[in-house]
């Protein structure tokens, strides 16, 4: 299936810049928490339902059951979506205090609105924003950062789809807000141990910017107190 993109090859992005962010919280009326997150042209919408009643077959006696659903834009969910779901679920499970809601279900639905590179990172950021909006207790926040390593070893932060395609390896990390440690990593392609360390260090640096953005967003949101 082909989707013709109206966005032509954008002006060359500098390697060290993160594209502009944008987020909107509680934009949907039905879910308990919702957010949309935009990184450059990549855009994702997230919705959270829960804690709510859980199916008996999925019930866990001492904690909540988290279900993550990723909806592709075109066609049925494929293996790629399933693996991304797993990455997001494991990150959320690590940060959510699931023991506080035993025998209940949490559902996180992520809808791709536009994919223009660094999609998994955008999923993670949207998920964190939606979980915050739903007011679920978390031990820490998390953010997603994607790095691409070009064939000459040059590392690009927050690559666009074109840069991802041209690169030798693409690495996505979930970084936590308290100690800036890696919560999840998803890699594609080949790279050396040194490069991995460099990417992690850069992602940790980049995460500071993202957490700053989170903070400003939340501050802005609660700026009008009753």
């Amino acid at each position, binding site marked *: 299936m082909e989707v*013709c*993109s*109206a966005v032509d090859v954008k002006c060359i992005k500098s390697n060290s*810049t993160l594209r502009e962010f944008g987020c909107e919280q509680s934009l*949907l009326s*039905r879910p308990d928490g919702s957010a949309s997150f935009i990184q450059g042209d990549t855009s994702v919408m997230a919705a959270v339902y*829960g804690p709510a009643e859980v199916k008996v077959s999925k019930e866990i006696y001492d904690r909540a059951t988290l279900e993550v659903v990723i909806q592709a834009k075109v066609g049925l969910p494929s293996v790629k979506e399933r693996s991304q779901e797993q990455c997001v679920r494991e990150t959320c499970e690590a940060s959510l205090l699931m023991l506080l809601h035993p025998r209940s279900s949490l559902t996180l639905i992520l*809808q791709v609105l536009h994919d223009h590179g660094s999609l998994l990172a955008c999923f993670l950021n949207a998920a964190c924003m939606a979980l915050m909006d739903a007011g679920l207790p978390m031990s820490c926040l998390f953010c997603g950062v994607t790095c691409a390593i070009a064939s000459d070893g040059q590392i690009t932060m927050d690559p666009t789809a074109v840069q991802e395609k041209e690169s030798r390896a693409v690495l996505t990390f979930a970084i936590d807000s308290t100690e800036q440690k890696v919560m999840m990593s998803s890699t594609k392609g080949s790279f050396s141990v040194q490069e991995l360390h460099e990417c992690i260090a850069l992602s940790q640096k980049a995460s500071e910017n993202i957490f700053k953005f989170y903070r400003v967003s939340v501050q802005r*949101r609660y700026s009008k107190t009753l």
Partner: protein
Amino acid sequence: MKDTPLSNCERDFLLKAIEEKKRLDGRQTYDYRNIKLRFGADYGCCIVDLGKTRVMAQVSCELVTPKESRPNEGILFFNLELSPMASPAFELGRSSELLVKLNRQLERCLRNSHCIDTESLCVVSGEKVWQIRVDVHMLNHDGNLMDATSIAAIAALSHFKRPDVGVQGDQVTVYSPEERNPIALSIYHMPICVSLSFFQQGTYLLVDPCEREERVMDGLLMITMNKHREICSIQSSGGIMLLKEQAMTEITDLIMRALENDKKTRKEGGKCGFAEYMPLARITVNTTDDTSVDMTGPVVVISDSEDEEDVVILHPETL
């Protein structure tokens, strides 16, 4: 997850209010909720807000072999998705009655009304035609999904552009958007669906029911028409008997409204903006510009003692 049931008190209250010609959101009987259209960066991507109901449509295309019975006609395919995002009652990958109903109605609305020139989608007769696929995702369910879906689908189809193709002998070349400008679909007219809900065995009638109203209604009448005042399809459900006159007078009344919608759709379509529309004035919204990460400084490679050991172990293996 189950949907929250509607209590008897709420039900009675709603019906009483409708009897008094009042609606929960302060609308009049024939008032539509506000419609907002936004187009995405991709061609053929459209998000429609109908009040709080939100629907996204994405059109895509593919070269396929045509049906044997119609060798020189392109194929239209509709895929509706009741995403659990819209309502907790929607389950993933299960086709419910509602889904079948919506899908069928959308097909009747867009395919059977012949609003799209399918013959222009033919590349090589009997061998290669374009299949146009419309994926509709429900993002938020606050009633009247059908109207929102029909508006989103037709708006997305009008926005969509397919790649240009060249035929030389037996060879079919598909040109990328950089090589040749993509081509828009030829659309004859825009059918738009209008839903009417009936209460108290058809005594009361409301246009564009919201989710609460949908739950207490007795029947639903969906009329699809275009701006030339032609009716493309009528579908009534809920098992109530309609008087002929009642339907006809409502239709004439509604033509104007459907027209208005159509105009609105066209106007928005003409603008063809594709940037992300963020309502910047809201406090729930925040944006930043590009931020740069300092890469020049000495990159601190976090290496614990364990890592060092790992490296040492790695070496003999590679050797």
